[in-house]
């Protein structure tokens, strides 16, 4: 599905706006092997995620996101950073630090630079519980 890259390697910037609970645009077209700089702006009133992955990866990730909600890390319109850093007892915390994803509070702008691999079925999605199911995801189309 590709890998994280440096901003200098990207030829193209795609701005993705987060709203409650949908993205604009709702689908993105890339070329196989292309490096894209995504500028993601949370224009909604709630916490949202931008996550690149397959539908299956999103499904798995949704389980950990559910835990973050259950443990009070994601609190609707803000993130409890103290809870997020907290050691869960087995050396794990609920940090959200995968290279293919950003978790954002309202008003935040973040970037992901991604070099796509070959054409596969990819989606960008918000895995905050319920958001994906409400329709907050879009297809990555390969040219």
């Amino acid at each position, binding site marked *: 599905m590709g890998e994280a890259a440096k901003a200098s390697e990207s030829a193209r910037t795609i701005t993705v706006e987060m709203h409650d*609970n*949908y993205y604009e645009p709702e689908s993105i077209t890339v070329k196989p092997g292309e490096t894209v700089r995504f500028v993601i702006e949370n224009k909604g009133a*709630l916490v949202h995620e931008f996550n690149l992955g397959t539908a299956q990866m999103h499904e798995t990730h949704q389980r950990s996101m559910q835990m973050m909600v259950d443990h009070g890390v994601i*609190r609707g*319109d803000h993130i409890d950073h103290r809870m997020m850093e907290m050691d869960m007892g087995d050396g794990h915390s609920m940090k959200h630090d995968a290279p293919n994803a950003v978790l954002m509070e309202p008003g935040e702008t973040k970037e992901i630079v991604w070099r796509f691999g070959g054409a596969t079925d990819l989606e960008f999605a918000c895995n905050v519980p319920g958001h994906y*199911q*409400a329709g907050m995801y879009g297809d990555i189309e390969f040219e």
Partner: protein
Amino acid sequence: MKRSILTALLAGFASLAVNAGEYNISVDRVQIDTGDFVKEGIGYNGASPGPILRFREGEEVTINVTNNLDEMTSIHWHGLILPFEQDGVPGISFPGIRPGETFTYQFPIVQAGTYWFHSHSGFQEPNGAYGAIVIEPEGREPFRYDREYVVQLTDKHPHSGDRIMRNLKTSADYYNRQQQTVGDFFSESARNGFVATLRDRMMWGEMRMMKADIEDVQGFTGLINGKGPEQNWTGLFEPGERIRLRFINSSAMTYFDIRIPGLTMTVVQADGNNVQPVNVDEFRLGVAETYDVIVHIRDEEAYTIFAESMGRSGFARGTLAPKEGMTADVPELREPPLLTMADMAGHMDHGDMNDDDMAGMDHGGAAMGSGMDHSAMGHGNMDQGSGSSLPQDPFYAQGSGLTPVASNGGRFLSYADLRAQNPLYEYREPTREIELRLTGNMERYEWSINGIKYEDADPIVLQYGERVRFKFVNETMMTHPMHLHGMWSILDVGEGKWNPLKHVISVAPATTVYMETEVDAPGEWAFHCHLSYHAAAGMFRKIVVEGGPDDQVDVSAVAREGGDA
């Protein structure tokens, strides 16, 4: 030039047409066929349920209602925000619609979502006079779907409303066929010991209360969109589609626990208002509530919509299928729940029991009476991740027999999960609190608020511009869906401005639930338990909102007076 004027005129006319709809509804005698029985009833435009009214936010609607009955009628637009003269409550908003008369309702649509309409006269609603309202929003919704269905439930009974009321008044347990029997006594003795079982029966017997007192009116057939379980209402879909189901509980008396085995439901709307989406396996639909859920069906399979009544005395069933005629398994009804001492706590706190009687009883539920711990509610589902022990739903008494559990062990929607998606009101401190004790005498089938029945009660007077905090204290052993007309009920789930907006607040036995209301609608409104026979037995109030947007109201003066209902 001429041409552009014409175009402008046409455009103007077109937009007028879009923003002003006219609708005709006739109120008719109809036959209702549930599959189990055929019953004469009342419907709209020749059928029960009536048509689905589709409005658009911002539209000015004109609805001509023609009464073809030989008795008075009315239509109440349940959950709609409108001028009080249009609210359709006889004796409060207007005199009612006489036989043969056509009454024209006219009001702007200022909201979007799923609602319903029903007669507010006598027992016409239980007799079939109800229909659905779907309002398209002006803007984009915070969710998307490919297809939508209204799923309107009711508890159709072979007896007419008048007869049911009379039977309940004559004998409150007339319809209760889930009472504990000699057989139950012996099987419970085998499980818990003879002495413990006897002691339990003695305790309830001394109070003259029944653990099985959950559904007053049994013997109904659950209908989905007018179809009984055998008639199997079916909604078609294409595999891969996301389907929005607009659940409406138009029952007279019955709460439904709803699931679609094999599918997770994402709740996106409660009582017509968008909520932050919640994934659930099952939810409880109180009488007169609505929930919109989205399901995503990937495969070419049929799925059963299974709605068990809360007391498990009946069910409604429908199917989502890729092809007409395809069905899925229909689950068995689960064991009927029984009330516990926790559910009785509210009654005992104010009842006539002495201290001796109280000794040795589980006071678990009494903690609710002293108010919920709102700070804990944000973490209401803290332990969910560990999977083993589901958290106690804070909207049920601790140890309540009614606390819902998902049939697959998964997630059951709680009021505590509901958060407004986009709050309508800024949060502010309430100007005063009004305590409403939900009271009754089951044996006599008398229901009241603060111990006073509607016919003996003064109206509750509110001042325009206030934000009133209502404190519901349920001192009965029944669950009451409290419905305020004309203004939103902001359910306190301890989340400030994110508290969800509802039009029905369900209050479980022995619990205290708070709601706040921005008093922004002048006039006279109804406020009542939406269980038809509870409302008719006296659990009803008139609310008078004094003042209006043009009046200067000294709200602080009102606050000083305090709130006696």
